[in-house]
């Protein structure tokens, strides 16, 4: 192996990717993103759904450049290293629906697996419950993998298929920059208060998104894959990336707390930023999300990177997640964060529709799991 190839291999590994995310996510908070939400694929896709008017929750509307950066970064890396390959073909409606329910689960917890790790690094103990739920969902999903679950194989497709999501997102980004408001009462919507109003400058967000996209595509970084590989084949390569993410995010939070006036680390369950301390629903939401992620083949971040490198199936899942965010807010399924009113803690969590949706989602995923198992044969 040449020196250049050795260096590239050493550079693009999950530990380096985890470290990059762990350092840059708290910095994004420093630059303006919501607390403990430097990066959150689920929350950011939800904000993008809001920006397009797919839901009208006025506090979570912003066309997040990080998401576009992830896809473009993966696209650039795949082109440069000749890995871009347009492919699609297996069970699009099932993948879309899994995306919908994965998002509902994530919004009941209030975060994707990446944000769960970042919340943990910021001292939010609810993240421990969420991560346990995520692991439980992954274990359930692995049970289906052992029974032969699969959604069929993807096949090579015309280039337009693989280009669709990168092009659509780039067009959206250009539109938000060039025509930020189509008209009065029309998209793009942009929150004036709440998490949607908190964001780093566009170019910083986009640059960090692209950087993460390049490294994640090259290293195959995936939180769900990390748990799955550890449990199935006792391989901890991807898991080391997750551990690196938590340690470096924790260290960066402490450093920022020392160097700035803001608090980046507070150890507690209650009243954490954009989080609730309803233990059961933190757990159950992530069981649903974890199960849906395993059945669809990867965490939401990984689905974005796969979309960037031409995977049309992953792009369908991403669109499902965006639709899921719209449903979650239009039907009142997303959880409400904890809040302090007149000095008293009011514990947040999902309302009844959200609880029912999590139950239905788990039933749906179990149904998909059973009905798509045992099909190994050529066909």
């Amino acid at each position, binding site marked *: 192996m040449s020196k250049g190839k050795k260096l590239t291999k050493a550079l693009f590994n999950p530990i380096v990717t985890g470290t990059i995310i762990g350092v840059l996510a708290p910095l994004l908070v420093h630059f303006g993103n919501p607390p403990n939400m430097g990066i959150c694929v689920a929350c950011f896709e939800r904000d993008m759904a809001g920006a397009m008017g797919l839901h009208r929750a006025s506090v979570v509307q912003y066309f997040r450049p990080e998401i576009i950066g992830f896809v473009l970064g993966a696209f650039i890396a795949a082109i440069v290293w000749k890995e871009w390959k347009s492919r699609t073909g297996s069970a699009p409606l099932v993948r879309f629906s899994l995306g919908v329910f994965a998002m509902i689960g994530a919004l009941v917890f209030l975060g994707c697996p990446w944000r769960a790790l970042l919340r943990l690094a910021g001292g939010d103990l609810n993240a421990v419950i969420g991560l346990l739920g995520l692991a439980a969902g992954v274990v359930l999903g692995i049970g289906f993998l*052992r029974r032969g679950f699969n959604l*069929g194989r993807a096949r090579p497709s015309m280039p337009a298929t693989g280009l669709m999501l990168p092009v659509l997102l780039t067009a959206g980004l250009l539109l938000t920059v060039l025509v930020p408001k189509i008209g009065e009462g029309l998209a793009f919507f942009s929150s004036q208060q709440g998490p949607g109003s908190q964001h780093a400058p566009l170019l910083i967000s986009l640059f960090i998104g692209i950087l993460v996209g390049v490294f994640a595509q*090259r290293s*195959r970084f995936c939180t769900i894959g990390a748990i799955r590989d550890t449990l199935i*084949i006792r391989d901890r390569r991807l898991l080391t990336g997750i551990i690196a993410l938590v340690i470096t995010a924790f260290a960066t939070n402490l450093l920022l707390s020392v160097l700035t006036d803001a608090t980046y680390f507070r150890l507690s369950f209650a009243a954490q930023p954009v989080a609730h301390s309803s233990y059961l629903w933190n757990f159950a939401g992530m069981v649903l999300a974890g199960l849906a992620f395993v059945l669809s083949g990867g965490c939401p971040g990984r689905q974005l990177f796969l979309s960037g490198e031409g995977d049309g199936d992953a792009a369908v899942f991403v669109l499902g997640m965006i639709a899921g965010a719209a449903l979650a807010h239009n039907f009142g399924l997303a959880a409400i964060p904890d809040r302090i009113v007149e000095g008293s803690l009011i514990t947040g969590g999902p309302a009844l529709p959200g609880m029912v949706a999590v139950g239905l989602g788990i039933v749906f995923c179990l149904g998909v799991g059973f009905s798509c198992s045992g099909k*190994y044969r050529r066909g």
Partner: protein
Amino acid sequence: MTGAGYALLLLPSVSHALLSEKVVKAEGISCKLIPTPREISTDCGIVLRFLKEDKKRLENVIEENGIDFKRIVVIQ
């Protein structure tokens, strides 16, 4: 441990990999599931690694069991 002397069976899904390992081991062929090497595929899934001299036998076992697979890569 993906060096010369080995070959890799690339499969459409993790489920296919788990089943392949089971049927191949049942035939007494030494094999191991490993993460897909990134030089081989962008997939974050897993592949079945085996000794390249067992390639023909393994192909037969996979074919006999009707398991769908993508391709076999012999590590040079």
